[in-house]
């Protein structure tokens, strides 16, 4: 994995679709070039650690945190909706999620 991976404009278009960012077509090549350079510089991560090294996902040993299941003060519906771009009947109003035919 030490060789620099090749990233094409099509790859960036695919990643942008996964990440839900509408990158203009004429910018795909620009991001592809930069991504390739960055990936080339970080590819060395696979050279050091052998299979015997465990992965660390977090700096602390974490345990689940529990509390008693009691009602506590929280935001009102009005507060929770106060920053929403669109609201209807005390709910977030969103564009259609399913196609008409679905």
């Amino acid at each position: 994995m030490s060789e620099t991976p090749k990233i094409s404009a099509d790859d960036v278009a695919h990643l942008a679709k996964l990440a839900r960012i509408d990158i203009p077509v004429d910018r795909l090549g620009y991001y592809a070039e930069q991504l390739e350079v960055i990936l080339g510089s970080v590819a060395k991560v696979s050279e050091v650690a052998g299979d015997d090294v465990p992965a660390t996902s977090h700096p602390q040993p974490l345990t689940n945190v529990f509390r008693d299941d009691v009602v506590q003060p929280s935001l009102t519906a009005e507060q929770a909706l106060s920053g929403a771009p669109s609201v209807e009947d005390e709910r977030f109003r969103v564009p259609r999620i399913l196609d008409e035919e679905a």
Partner: protein
Amino acid sequence: MNDLIHKDASELATLVRDGQASAVEVAQAHLDRITEVDERVHAFLHVDTAGALAAAAAVDAKRAAGEPLGPLAGVPLGLKDVMCMQGIPTTCGSKMLEGWRPPYDATVTARLKAAGIVILGKTNMDEFAMGSSTEHSAYGPTRNPWDLERIPGGSGGGSSAVLAAFEAPLSIGTDTGGSIRQPAAVTATVGVKPTYGAVSRYGLIALASSLDQAGPCARTVLDAALLHQVIAGYDPHDSTSLNEPVADMVAAAGTRDLTGMKIGVVKELGGAGYQAGVRQRFTEALEVLAGLGAEIVEVSCPHFDYALAAYYLILPSECSSNLAKFDGMRYGVRAGDDGESSVEQVMARTRAAGFGEEVTRRIILGTYALSAGYYDAYYGSAQKIRTLIQRDFDQAFQQVDVLVSPTAPTTAFKLGEKLDDPLAMYLNDIATIPANLAGTPGMSLPVGLAPEDNLPVGLQIMAPARKDERMYAVGGALEAALLQQWGAPILSHSKGLQ
């Protein structure tokens, strides 16, 4: 009473407590200073004049009623715009959250208010805390008060600039890869990244949750310690919050003798790629530390050479997931909702309109690193390096009490100099990133000006996890010895605003 702005936080708190100055006077002096200089510095994204004066008046009323005041009551502060403050615009430096007013306070914000600290406003930052120069703010860069053509560091450049421009004696920063420490280094101020979990992340808009840590910024080690005591401590709202007592940082900051202290110089941090003047001032500071009784030894942390690479896989991976919530549905801006388009199309348009270039770059990179076929080679390998870096720290701290290095490889660079070269920008954090990966604490404090450009140089002190007080002890002793040598605080040499 214009000299109020040049006083340290501890001095201001004493003046207010003793009735020699009112909290309102102190707040007004700083608000006037903001009016005078912030057009040039651009450290604030939002100034809450009415709120600050009301908070100050409340402190004065409390004093008049004979109620006890906390150690920082009546002292003004700049709050990084990554931290939620109820009813006050909180943008994270992004167009995505333009106009958003949080319906609640972050735990840090709530603790500041409860301590009687007067929040002047929200400070500028790189968008969603991604950057080392504040140039990635969607609202324009902050400028370094030492030289307005230069960067104040990042992502917390607003929080460092308010201190160096005497707009506030205290500020709050957040540090994911150096965003408190590097800005402190390039502005000759003090910045502390506490142990991971020491300060609650509740209401801190997340960049990379396993790396993010809020901390105190100030002009002196003592002031940083006082602020640390206010914001640190267990918070049930944050499942990663450390549930243990906070050590006495203020007492530690009073240390003046380092006899018996063993200080390790990290071999891997400070060689090639570090500016000559940075290395010179760092080496001189080591002599001062030795003069205070510390034993200085060289320590090797071989995997630190891989920290930057691991960080630029772990951070984009976590941020691509964390920033998925900014989709224009529940808060922030929404773009391209024409009544015809699907929710996915509107999300994609919203994110294209709301995110700047660096944020887009990192989300795409993270999406790649986490995608099928690449996960093990990139994200998996980076997590293993994280283990190796933790082991390096563990071994080093078996030999020494603290580690030191230059905080940043160079002094403040010019605006625009590295904007088109992401890799060059990322190198700024090469010495600060290991502590984030391991969850250990780090402090930066000024150790002089580089002879070649007369710009500030910072020294970093790193301690074992949950031993933050050691940094305050070493930092407090070093600061006092340097002040004696210099005769005046280093910021008195700053000419950028004259």
